């Protein structure tokens, strides 16, 4: 039998297995566990986890099934068909992925079981004086017996108020160059030393926050990777975050996914669909989105064939022109109606919202400029940016 045929049989088996499991366990009409009337989220996630579907590509030792990514997509598809939550956490659960990839067995045993049951995390990376230059964080973590005491300020922390834990990047050694003195922790968020103040965003939301850490405590056992080895751990976490952004899930809550692309829907509604110049721009926007999808498809093929793909690093940058471009085009087609912003004018409201939200992709998770630095250096092999502070003890680094 050829390799392709073996694979096809295996994927059919996976599909059959997952469907059968869902049929036995999930009530698609009531959207809860079979035999109950209301979703018990934690109970359901426990079942999904224990069946190996929460993180199907992981090893069986850690709740996985050793599935290929193609097989995992089949699991995903079967879950989506009956609108059951809980799978795909090997891609979407940033905290769990980071612990799985970089944590010790003890850390995995302590945190993965809970992380896969809907615990919420936040990213405590950025600070007022360390944004793009994350290796410059000044939040200090000092050892005190079996725990660390944390002092400093984080900013732009999305979902901090809802979070059970924070993925914290803090400085543990000030006498070495900046990349070498960082440690990555899992910080319990619900404790007296953590004070959170919401920030108002240009989208009208306030999902990100300032987080003040004053003698906050974190067990030494919660270090991910090595003490002072936080920079490497951060690279893993950032790579996953960018991957997720590069696939461009809709950023707007509540709007149902439609088969008609929004640029076409708005063009039809406003009559601009008949404008030849506008049609060229609409086609260009649709093309950018489809080209990114084709790149990601090719990336997955390359990963299957050779284990990795540099194409994965392009998605987030490509997504910026897609999101900014589409929102701007829709606003332009709406014309004066775009001035309005209420429930009676949903297209206008959405275009206004998306015009602001697009910056989440082009600033958050590393700006477009930082992405271009990374692509040109790591993929194209061009020289690194010169950094005045790369080799001096962090204590002597200027900030502002």
């Amino acid at each position, binding site marked *: 039998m050829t390799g392709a045929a073996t694979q096809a049989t295996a994927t059919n088996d996976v599909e059959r297995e997952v469907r059968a499991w869902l049929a036995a366990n999930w009530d698609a009409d009531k959207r809860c566990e079979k035999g109950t009337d209301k979703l018990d989220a934690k109970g359901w996630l426990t079942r999904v986890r224990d069946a190996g579907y929460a993180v199907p590509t992981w090893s069986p030792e850690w709740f996985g099934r050793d599935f290929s990514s193609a097989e995992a997509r089949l699991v995903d598809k079967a879950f989506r068909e009956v609108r059951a939550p809980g799978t795909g956490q090997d891609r979407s659960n940033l905290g769990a992925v980071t612990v799985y990839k970089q944590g010790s067995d003890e850390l995995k045993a302590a945190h993965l079981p809970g992380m896969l049951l809907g615990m919420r995390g936040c990213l405590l990376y950025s600070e007022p004086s360390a944004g793009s230059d994350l290796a410059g964080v000044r939040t200090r973590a000092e050892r005190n017996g079996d725990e660390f005491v944390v002092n400093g300020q984080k900013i732009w922390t999305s979902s901090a108020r809802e979070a059970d834990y924070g993925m914290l990047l803090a400085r543990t050694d000030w006498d070495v160059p900046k990349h070498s003195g960082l440690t990555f922790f899992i910080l319990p968020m619900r404790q007296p030393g953590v004070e959170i103040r919401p920030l108002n965003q240009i989208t009208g939301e306030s999902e990100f926050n300032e987080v003040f850490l004053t003698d906050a405590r974190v067990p030494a056992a919660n270090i991910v990777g090595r003490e002072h080895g936080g920079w490497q751990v951060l690279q893993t976490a950032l790579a996953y975050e960018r991957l997720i952004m590069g696939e461009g899930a809709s950023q707007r809550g509540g709007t149902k996914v439609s088969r008609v692309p929004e640029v076409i829907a708005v063009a039809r509604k406003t009559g601009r669909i008949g404008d*030849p110049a506008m049609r060229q721009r609409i086609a260009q926007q649709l093309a950018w989105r489809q080209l990114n999808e084709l*790149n990601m*498809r090719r990336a997955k093929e390359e990963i299957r064939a050779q284990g990795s793909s540099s194409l994965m690093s392009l998605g987030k940058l490509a997504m910026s022109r897609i999101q900014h471009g589409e929102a701007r085009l829709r606003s332009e087609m709406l014309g004066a109606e775009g001035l309005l912003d209420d429930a009676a004018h949903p297209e206008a409201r959405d275009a206004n919202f998306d015009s602001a939200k697009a910056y989440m992709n082009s600033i958050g998770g590393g700006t477009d400029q930082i992405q271009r630095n990374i692509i*040109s250096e790591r993929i194209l092999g061009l020289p*690194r940016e010169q950094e005045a502070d790369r080799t001096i003890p962090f204590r002597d680094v200027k900030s502002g």
Partner: protein
Amino acid sequence: MSAISPEDRAAMRESFARLLASDHTEARMRATTASPAGFDRSLWGKVGEMGLLAVLVAEENGGLGAGMREMGELFEEAGKALYTAPLLESAVIATSLLALSADAEARARLLSAMAAGETIAIPALTGDSGTWDAAGVAVEAAGDLLSGHAAYVNHAASADVLLVAAREGAGVALYEVAPATDGVTLTPQPANDPSLRLSRINFEGAAARRIEGADAAVIRAALDRGRVAQAGEQAGGSRHVLDMTVAYMLGRYQFGRPIGSYQALKHMAADLLVEVESALSAARHAAAAMDDGSADAVQLVSLAGFACADAYVEVTAQAIQMHGGIAYTTEYPLHLYWRRARSLAQMLGSSGAFCEQYLGEWEKAA
């Protein structure tokens, strides 16, 4: 389904790349491009011996019975090396016109000779308007006599056979014409891109043989194959030009450091990589969709039609800027890629027309 395995496809690509590296060096490329025919007949023969001209020919006609996946990858290599010859015209478009027609006699007579590199068939499918659609055809058929003109016919002077689109009542049909026939006049059309050998052809009651079952749909399908092959060339050329540019950026020093360390240039290069990879994805997925007869084949072909053309123009144009003065000289090869990119962007249809067609496909689906 292609008769060729992925391993064979890779091997074929590899041997073509090796042939081009040995027989189509920059010096040879410049010499043959400057020659009257614009290409090297002996290299064409070797390309034929390798089976590359037989890719789209069915096995019963002495071909490989392969598809656009294979052809597209070969064109990526051709794009890198600026190997043009009548590959697009004879091995893709003319071959497809015959292969997709219902004319078993013409197939049997022409295709194996074309596959072997002995016969060069050149399509003449549009008039001065250069729209490459049925409306652009400017030849009339009356019985088996053709009158009118065709334009932008590349390598017409090297043709052993011309395949001419002609109006026939309300429709369009295809005719086989021997170039030496009375009433056929070739006038060279000087082009900006030195790889081209364009002619305008006048037909004044020229005797022709009708190709059976080659209507507007067949002509369009053959042109679409040409477009997908061309997309491969555009993607491969873009890739090569970016590689060339990055190499130059590492070796050229100004202000005591490589120009590749300047962020203005690094960021341009990163943006160009997005263009290059997107072009490659568009070309490959269009080829696969075409081979598989997927429902979205037309959409993907039109996407490749403008995305690859625009990418190649953008990459080559920016690359000149990134090189500086050296790229403004004819000794440096970059301008040859840039000219090729600009000419391909007008060949077989314009970006604007492909955009329109692409949006039309979206509108049908949604």
